[in-house]
């Protein structure tokens, strides 16, 4: 039996997640891994929106903010379990995306970028200004998920870092599985048609407005879940999670790794999460080198890191 490309991708991802810890010299690397997975989840959502549907968003950190603050606030105010709060955040983000997506997605190109940018800034402003509820710019603490304790009672004792490595790794894998399935589904094909030419897609009977909206909602839910996981993992959250810089960071990771490819975008997330840690030894030159690497990749590997590398490998073989 030959493995399909989708299953091969998932298998490679799963193996990488499962085997990497064998090389970890210390617990710190679990933390880095978990950060990569959290970013990887949000970035997978952006692949659906940018890579599949061809729509841009500079405000997806706003949804991460909604997800994060749902986990921070719902347990205290509504008495909800943090796990359920995560679902509430996802529903809320999806709902907000559905509401604002309808008018916003009529816009194209720069206009869409600016409109989504505005949305993201709006969310971070609300989080910062409604200090009575959100704790303001200083942030607020997030309740413990409690799952690690439950695992310990049934005999699976994990350190905090190990638990979050496993939990976020699993979440990212699930996210990748859903996105890859979407890619091969009729909806996915319609999305890609829309990406190549909106007019052509419309002509062959694709409901363009509905499809754009569903891609927007799906990617918002991904971002929201990633924000929730970040909040629960860090046990503390500030409005920075919804900030413009975070939005740009997510788009950069997606484009850097390969905007049309789920494993590519995840590789982008991994590279851009790891590089700043690796470059701390160079101190002042950190940002300079980071910028240089990004420019070089964009100039010489225009499709992003992974798709370009794969093509080069295939071209040789």
């Amino acid at each position: 039996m030959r493995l399909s490309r989708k299953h091969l991708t998932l298998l490679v991802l799963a193996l990488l997640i499962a085997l990497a810890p064998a090389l970890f010299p210390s617990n710190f690397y679990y933390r880095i891994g978990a950060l990569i997975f959290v970013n990887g989840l949000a970035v997978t959502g952006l692949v659906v929106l940018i890579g599949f549907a061809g729509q841009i968003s500079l405000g997806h950190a706003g949804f991460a903010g909604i997800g994060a603050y749902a986990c921070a606030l719902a347990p205290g105010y509504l008495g909800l379990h943090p796990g359920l709060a995560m679902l509430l955040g996802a529903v809320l983000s999806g709902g907000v995306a559905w509401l604002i997506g309808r008018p916003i997605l009529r816009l194209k190109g720069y206009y869409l970028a600016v409109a989504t940018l505005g949305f993201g800034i709006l969310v971070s402003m609300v989080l910062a200004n409604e200090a009575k509820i959100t704790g303001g710019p200083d942030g607020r603490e997030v309740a413990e998920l409690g799952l690690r304790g439950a695992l310990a009672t049934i005999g699976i004792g994990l350190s905090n870092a190990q638990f979050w490595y496993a939990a976020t790794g699993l979440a990212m894998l699930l996210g990748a599985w859903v996105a890859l399935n979407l890619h091969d589904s009729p909806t996915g094909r319609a999305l890609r048609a829309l990406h190549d030419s909106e007019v052509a897609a419309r002509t062959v009977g694709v409901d363009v407005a509905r499809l754009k909206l569903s891609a927007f909602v799906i990617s918002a839910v991904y971002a929201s879940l990633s924000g929730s996981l970040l909040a629960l993992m860090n046990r503390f959250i500030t409005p920075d999670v919804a900030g413009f810089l975070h939005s740009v960071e997510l788009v950069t990771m997606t484009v850097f790794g390969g905007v049309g490819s789920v494993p590519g975008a995840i590789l982008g997330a991994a590279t851009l999460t790891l590089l700043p840690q690796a470059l701390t030894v160079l101190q002042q030159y950190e940002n300079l080198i980071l910028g240089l690497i990004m420019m070089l990749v964009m100039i010489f590997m225009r499709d992003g890191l992974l798709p370009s590398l794969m093509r080069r490998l295939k071209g040789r073989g």
Partner: protein
Amino acid sequence: MKLNVFGSALALTLGLAGPAFADIKIGASVSETGPASSLGDPEAKTLKLLVDEINAAGGVLGQKLKLFLYDDGGDPNKARTFATRLVEDDGVIAIVGGSTTGTTMSIISVVENAKIPFISLAGAIEIIDPVKPFVFKTPHTDRMACRKIFEDMKAKGFSKIALISGSDGFGASMRKQCLQVIGEFGITVLAEETYGPNDADMTPQLTNIRSKGEVQAILNPGFGQGPAIVTRNYGQLGIKTPLYQSHGVASKSFIDLAGPASEGVRLPGTAVLVASLLPANDPQKAVVAAYTTAYQAKFNQPASTFGGYAHDGLRLLVDAIKRAGKADPKAIRDAIEGTKGFVGVTGTFNMAATDHLGLDLSAFRMLEIKRGDWALVQ
């Protein structure tokens, strides 16, 4: 014979890896760049300066200090990652840092889990209240600044004041703390105004305050450019009611930004700002003079309050390591908590199991701006 060789090899390895030859590793994550760089930059410089100084003088307990310094850019998520790195990968025995309340709060659960002492350089009272076993801090709280200001107001016989506060994190937090303690001084707030962090004109708010004739003093809890604009507008409107600013603007750049209108403005600040004005018998004179001179000499810029927090954080830690007699996190924690009468540049620290800050109001000096410079209010 074989056994002997093995034995000596083992002894050699143990000897090399043993603590007697290792450095004492200290970690720091501060916001050298980003929005909080005005805090983090002098902190990072101070830490490097002091570690060099201490090592040149023979180190601590006969060992050299090794500083692992990271720049979190003011991002709480990064701060947490660096704290994890310091604890798990670099293997530090204590952390100094956390320039902002946000970065500090996200470091706290890392150090509490790892049982590593952490001295924060951020202001909020939440950091040490409720007391967490391994978390300490050196900057005084906003509440203490409020008390110092109200003390001065009371001494001058002011009992009816107006508040104009920034709606940013610092302004909102200090406003809250001030309103909590204002009753103790018999002072009432007659008028209250707020402004946003990016507002460029506070004339309407100040006009409202001016229209309340009985107001005897105006207090402006705020951080950044807001208080400078308030002071300028205050001058332009020709308001004669005395103006009090907070410790959040206790730096030379505030005087430059606010211009001549800042003449006569009062605010609580640390001894670092007025090093040369301290009387010879002041207990902090020697330590403040030593720090400000060394900082000025090395970086060719004046030392700031924020660098002073880092100075006290590191010196407190080193003092605790010496008293603990070993580089063991638990013993160091106990020694920090047992700190008594430690004279820093921010104030004199007397830690206790219930007080992980250890400063009292005497740590603050009431300053007045006179002829474009700080003056001590006696």
